């Protein structure tokens, strides 16, 4: 895997090969088209359902083309369903978590890859292993730790760390840190030793080597990891489910599970909520597709 992680290959996907003439693959095309259609059906069905008012589907049935098509369900989900708030909650969790995880992981990665000392491989193994554990293994102690960590009521209305964004951010950050450290350390290992050697000759300390030499060179890796982590943390369902009890503080990925109960028998509204939840990831994907794909393949250790 470390071979896959070199600065050169991090973001540049190999260009489509040119030269040999394209062959005809009718069978392949038929198979792939059939698979692609099957792949799209669930998504298209959700969008189709979301675009139809419940009055239309009640009258004509869900499996029909009759009736109106409009964005009423989206508007209702956004204003009454609380999606504006849930998306904002996701932002509150995602942004600090991604920034912190990259900050800490980059320092750790620097220390284990650019400085040679006794326990660097041991620590790197510990970090990587932590990321591979099923989150449920940690759930009970983390929940009890948060519950028994007393804080003033002015800080948290539960009197402890439950029901706060801070615990969700902290645990997400800790859980993703191993993965980011692993990827970044492989990336930094591939950078030439001469770079910091020259700085050392100039009398640059560790912090300057990290901040002014290695960090700027890791920009492609940061772009890929940041994109990936935004999507991972946005998509995280479990930690808010464990720590946050008030429904109005949930991020959108976890909130939609509650709406399943609330929107009972209004599948149109549920579908609209699902589509709204997809939109941010879709935007990130369309804008930063290259970074996202690079991140996934460059850290293909992701469990």
């Amino acid at each position: 895997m470390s071979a896959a992680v070199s600065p050169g290959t991090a973001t540049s996907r190999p260009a489509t090969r040119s030269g040999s003439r394209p062959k005809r693959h009718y069978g392949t095309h038929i198979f792939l088209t059939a698979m692609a259609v099957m792949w799209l059906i669930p998504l298209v069905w959700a969008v189709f359902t979301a675009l139809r008012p419940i009055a239309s589907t009640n009258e004509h049935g869900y499996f029909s083309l009759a009736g109106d098509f409009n964005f009423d369900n989206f508007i209702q989900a956004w204003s009454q369903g609380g999606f504006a708030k849930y998306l904002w909650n996701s932002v509150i969790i995602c942004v600090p978590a991604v920034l912190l995880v990259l900050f800490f992981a980059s320092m750790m990665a620097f220390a284990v890859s650019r400085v040679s000392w006794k326990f660097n491989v041991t620590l790197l193994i510990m970090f990587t292993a932590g990321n591979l554990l099923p989150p449920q293994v940690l759930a009970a102690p983390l929940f009890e730790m948060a519950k028994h960590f007393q804080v003033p009521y002015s800080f948290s209305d539960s009197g402890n760390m439950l029901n706060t964004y801070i615990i969700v951010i902290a645990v997400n950050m800790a859980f993703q840190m191993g993965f980011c450290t692993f990827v970044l350390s492989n990336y930094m290992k591939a950078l030439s030793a001469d770079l910091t050697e020259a700085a050392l000759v100039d009398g640059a300390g560790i912090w300057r080597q990290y901040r002014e030499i290695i960090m700027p060179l890791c920009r492609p890796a940061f772009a890929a990891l940041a994109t990936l982590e935004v999507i991972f943390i946005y998509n995280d369902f479990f930690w808010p489910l464990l720590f946050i009890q008030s429904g109005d503080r949930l991020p959108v990925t976890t909130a939609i599970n509650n709406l399943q109960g609330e929107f009972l028998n209004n599948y149109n509204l549920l579908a609209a909520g699902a589509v709204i939840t997809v939109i941010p990831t879709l935007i990130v994907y369309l804008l930063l597709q290259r970074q996202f794909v690079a991140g996934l393949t460059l850290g293909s250790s992701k469990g």
Partner: protein
Amino acid sequence: MSATARDLVPPESRAPSGTPAKRVGSGKVRRLSRRDKVVLSLMVGLPTLIQLVFIWLPTVMSVGLSFTRWNGLALGDIRPAGGDNYQYISQDYPPFWPAIQHNMLWLAFLALVATPLGLLLAVLLDQQIRGSRIYQSIFFTPVMLSLALIGIIWQLFYQRDNGLLNFLLGTSGTPQAVDWFGDSSINIWAAMVAATWRHAGYVMLLYLAGLKGVDPSLKEAAAIDGANAAQTFFRVVFPAMRPINIVIVVITIIESLRAFDVVYVINRGTNGLELLSALVIQNLVGEGQVIGVGSALAVVLLVISLVPIVFYLSRTFGRENRA
């Protein structure tokens, strides 16, 4: 000066070169300045502390709590219970063995259906075919979605009365209509299909990267030796992707142990959808909190997870450790 501190030497300063910028003492080895040592200990210490507090301490505590009886209220109420919790889950806890079976079924399904499907898609798309990028984007779309959302989207597709699948099968509104997520004899299969939707795209992406990394001359050599396409793939290309294959094996196993979101969204992991991860949570939340039982289940999950984790770590770091 401890041994650790003496080892805190940038690798490049090991070889004598250039003018030494800083020499401490008589200059046997160029050591880090005091300030650099402080900076480095912070750079290592803070992330390590976070990992220990939020990952490894809870893991150890899970093991500890699994040998206790506790309702999760006052810390003073924790009572030692020996192996009672383990005895209870293995003998008197009805969902335990179904959950183990379902986790194994989940693994088998991902390993025998989803992963090979992703590999097949990657191999087909790696050829020079028109529209390869469009196909890739389509197959890749579910990978961006959370498994919770996938549960919701498939719920719309699978419902008994208004779901598309029953309309397509012509059973909608009839007594034969299948409640794909509700019927305990088939809902695990329906859930695994939904999980495949995502897993196959992920595997495809990783194998596409792997296939691009295979030296084309290997294929050409095999073709000259008279190997057909299948032989070339299975005897030459596939073995050449060994590093990616290991990653895929590990991901497949770990995903099957982590499977949680989909079943939790459907029915919290009950009625045919019992999985170890869901049972852990059922014992932690809700009225009768039985932390000890939940922790014992978590430890079972942990022990099983350690198999692929250790396998992967020894493959990845084994070489470096020996060096």
